[in-house]
């Protein structure tokens, strides 16, 4: 495990940024939860508030993916190699997604 200032700074920066951006999905989830429990099921307002789970997923997955780079960097100490591996993971994921949706 290698600890240096720029790694520490990156971890703190990602944590801060994600906490800040996360206010939007958290707000959405609370409103969604209230709708689920209190609005009339199937009514127009209920259905309108049910959407938006995608945003929460995107937020969590993005933070998770960025954190893999930091985890890699922390153990190897080599940011460029970590970025390269992350790029490869992303490429593989996109490849799988593309072949599945039949876009290729």
């Amino acid at each position, binding site marked *: 495990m290698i600890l240096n200032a720029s790694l520490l700074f990156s971890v703190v920066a990602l944590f801060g940024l*994600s906490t*800040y951006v996360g206010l939007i999905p958290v707000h959405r989830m609370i409103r969604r939860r209230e709708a689920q429990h209190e*609005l009339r099921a199937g009514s127009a*307002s209920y259905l309108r508030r049910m959407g938006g789970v995608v945003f929460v997923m995107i937020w969590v997955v993005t933070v998770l993916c960025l*954190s893999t780079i930091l985890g890699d960097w922390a153990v190897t100490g080599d940011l460029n190699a970590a970025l390269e591996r992350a790029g490869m993971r992303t490429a593989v994921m996109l490849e799988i997604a593309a072949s599945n949706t039949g876009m290729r």
Partner: protein
Amino acid sequence: MYAEQSALQCPSCGGMCYFSPVAQALECLSCGKVYNLDQPDDYLARDEFAHNKNVPDADPKSAPPQQTHQCRNCGGEVVFTGPALSENCPYCNGPVVLVPGDSGYKTMALIPFRVDAPFAKRLAQDWIDARICVPADLALTVEQGVVVGLYAPFWTFDSDEAVHYWANYVTYRNNKIRTRKTEGALDIMFDDLLMPASPHVTPLIRDGILHDFDPADLRPYRAGYLAGFAAEMHHQSVMEGLSANETDKDTLIRNHIKDEVNKTAVHGIRYLTDTTGIHYRRILLPVWILHYTYRAHAYRIVVSGIDGRTFGERPFSYRKMALFSAAVTACAMTVGMLLGAQAAF
């Protein structure tokens, strides 16, 4: 209006009467005598009226009230019957001015208040207490709010919809995701669909608190039921009512189609519908509204006058939401970093 006012005078002492939600009757403010409003033919209030698109609107107009309170803020017009309890607009709490009343459409029926003001206020406070991520001093602000009883105008619509639809959905087989097309026909019967009959009644009032509408609770329109409350009268023609509620009906039809298709990721829905058998009622429904202001922003909590169901608007505490967000972030980052560390070798 004169006849209506005199009907609210106590025959025994001449005092003013108001409708008591607890007694379900007119009650004299001075001597406390109670007068029953029930009549043997009350069940007629359940009747619905057929609407013919090709016949011009012939609904009976109501006699204009002597005066109407018009809100200078939102433009809402309400009539206070009997002892007026509030000088403010029930919808937005804005200042009201007296204007000459204009005749609207006759209200066919209403559901009288069953929940009284102190209980409604208690329910509004309980609702706030049950929220997560609210500012700590909010309960105190809400405690100072005043509840106003309002008979809000609603439609009930029945209709038969012969829908023909086209839609796409997604299949996942042999590791392949495919988008497929489908189409079909579907009959939807809307029965007593509640629709706001005024732009001031938000769908949130209806979907938040008026869950279980039962036509058996309807009573004929009588001044006695309105005594002590504000009421907004019906001003929409049936055509206006139908078109104002088009978007809500569209949402509901699309949801029916989704259920009918019953596949993964249904999207790109298009449909045509042939609407027949429209029946309607113009009714008033009892709503308690509590207004409060937090950091110069106005909020409302609404409580059903029928069964006390509560819903509302509230501010969020950014500090508390940030704690939530930080917790989720911490989890995601921990998992991500562990996965990243593993992937490095």
